[in-house]
């Protein structure tokens, strides 16, 4: 029979261990309640899967803590993992409900609404007329475009710069006491005030499908969209990492709507429909004085014979002109040098 003292000691030890575990979990920025990092913190955690692909299962906690999903528990996405060690988990379904409560509706959070948007968009598997599209396997799902994005906080004090403004945080602390809450809220809001990806990165995401010649051909698309974007001034600036320049989403999504509501340029509701697209260019942040003419030609024309015949002929003309001017010039120069260096040489000259 245990004495009272012994029982009290065991209870204290248990409470101490529980307390340590709790403090340890609380200190961890991520919501690793299931202690998944016990294994997944090791950089070498990997294997070759059934399809022969090398899979890395390492989770970099520092990076994950800076991601927009840092407060989401691992098992909220990996719902089929119920025990440790676990079996091969299913692929994550982004439309499941997670434990996060959406503050305006006070409902459990889910990306389900996005599924509705996506289904009605140009990337949905069913056409607007109700008939299923060809090659549905080519159409994107969440993870074809999204990874786990990192916060990109901005400071607006005195001047706009990347990062967190301690001055702003200080103002938050006047009313809000939890630093962790302030930090998350600041990150969430300021990240949402601009783009999480730069224009080059966004074009690269779209290019995965829209620059794939096979896919372009299969879906009868008129151009390689990201490639032709790269040939424009916008694309050039994007490749120089200019963030002010419009990317694919700025022109293909109606202002105020989600990028998942993107419509075909043949849809009269679409911002890229022929009678609507002038509004894109004339946007207050872009070319506010733009005439409707600015958008009246193929925006994505590649400068080849099929898509930009006039530009193609201008290009050919100038190549011929450059050759036609420079080659005779260089010929005369060559003869001039020869004559000056070898004054007595000649076809019928006798010294």
């Amino acid at each position, binding site marked *: 029979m245990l004495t009272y003292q012994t029982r009290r000691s065991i209870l204290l030890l248990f409470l101490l261990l529980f307390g340590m575990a709790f403090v340890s979990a609380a200190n961890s920025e991520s919501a690793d309640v299931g202690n998944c990092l016990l294994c997944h913190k090791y950089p070498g955690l990997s294997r070759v899967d059934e399809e022969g692909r090398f899979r890395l299962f390492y989770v970099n906690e520092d990076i994950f803590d800076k991601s927009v999903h840092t407060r989401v528990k691992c098992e909220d996405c990996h719902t089929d993992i119920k025990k440790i060690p676990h079996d091969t988990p299913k692929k994550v379904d982004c439309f499941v409900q997670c434990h996060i409560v959406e503050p305006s509706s006070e409902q459990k959070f889910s990306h389900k609404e996005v599924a509705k948007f996506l289904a009605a968009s140009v990337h949905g598997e069913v056409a607007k007329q109700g008939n299923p599209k060809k090659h549905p396997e080519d159409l994107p799902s969440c993870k074809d475009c999204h990874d786990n994005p990192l916060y990109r906080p901005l400071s607006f004090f005195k001047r706009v710069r990347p990062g967190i403004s301690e001055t702003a945080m200080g103002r938050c602390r006047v009313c809000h006491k939890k630093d962790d809450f302030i930090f998350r809220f600041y990150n969430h809001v300021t990240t949402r005030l601009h783009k999480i990806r730069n224009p080059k990165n966004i074009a690269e995401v779209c290019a995965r499908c829209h620059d794939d010649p096979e896919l372009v051909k299969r879906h009868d698309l008129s151009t390689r969209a990201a490639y032709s974007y790269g040939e424009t001034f916008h694309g050039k600036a994007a490749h120089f990492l200019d963030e002010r320049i419009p990317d694919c989403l700025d022109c293909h999504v109606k202002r105020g709507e989600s990028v998942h509501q993107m419509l075909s340029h043949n849809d009269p509701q679409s911002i890229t429909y022929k009678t609507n697209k002038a509004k894109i260019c004339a946007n207050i942040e872009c070319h506010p004085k733009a005439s409707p003419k600015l958008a009246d030609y193929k925006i994505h024309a590649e*400068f080849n014979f099929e898509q930009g015949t006039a530009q193609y002929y201008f290009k050919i003309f100038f*190549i011929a002109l450059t050759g036609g001017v420079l080659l005779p010039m260089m010929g005369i120069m060559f003869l001039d040098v020869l004559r000056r260096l070898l004054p007595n040489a000649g076809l019928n000259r006798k010294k």
Partner: protein
Amino acid sequence: MKDTAIAFQQEEETSETDSPTGKIYFVRLNYSEKVQHMIFMICFVTLVITGFMLKVPEGIVQKLGSAGEAVFLIRSLLHRIAGTVMILVSVYHVYYLIFKPAGRRWLFDMLPRFKDLNDLVGNCLYYFGVKKEPPEFDRFCYKHKMEYGALIAGTILMAATGLIMWTEYRWSKFIIDIATVVHGMEAILASLAIMIWHLYEIHLKPRKSPIDDAWITGVIDEEEMKEEYPLHYKKIMADPKLQEIYIKRETQ
């Protein structure tokens, strides 16, 4: 006219024509023309550098980070400033050609003539050694006239397409696309023509190398005048009015 080679050999032996008031020089560019050339040249070089910066490999610009953003902001400003100044100088040049006596002389001397075609053929025959003497050039030879014509055409094209791209909101994307192609391709042509042709013809060819300083001094000496522009030399020496315009004496 003596052969170029003979001119080389006799260069040291030939005594300069010394007038009682000193050695004489022949004006190739007057003060206004020198200033116009200087401004145009500075604008041209600035435009070439700031324009072709757009062709710098993206990886290099990306490595510059935020400094790259500042550099490219300055690039864009400088390109527009240089373009504007170049257009203004060109407009002034047109005014100069019409309203100034020296400008009218320039225009008259620069007009293409049948003789230029003959000179081109004669010059090629001379190069091939078929003819013993090169043609006698006047103030501007066929090479100068071709280059001047190319300069006018190039400046008009570049200014027009540059202004279209600068006022992109007024135009159709079709026009902007063509302007972009023409501006880029003409830039390559003009830069190569200047780098290959103008630098060789004016500065780097034997005898003138490494530089012909006439673009700074505005004058050439009598030897060079006799050798390069013999017809013009003869005309000047035969006409006191032309001597007043084109001859400068060392002591002046």
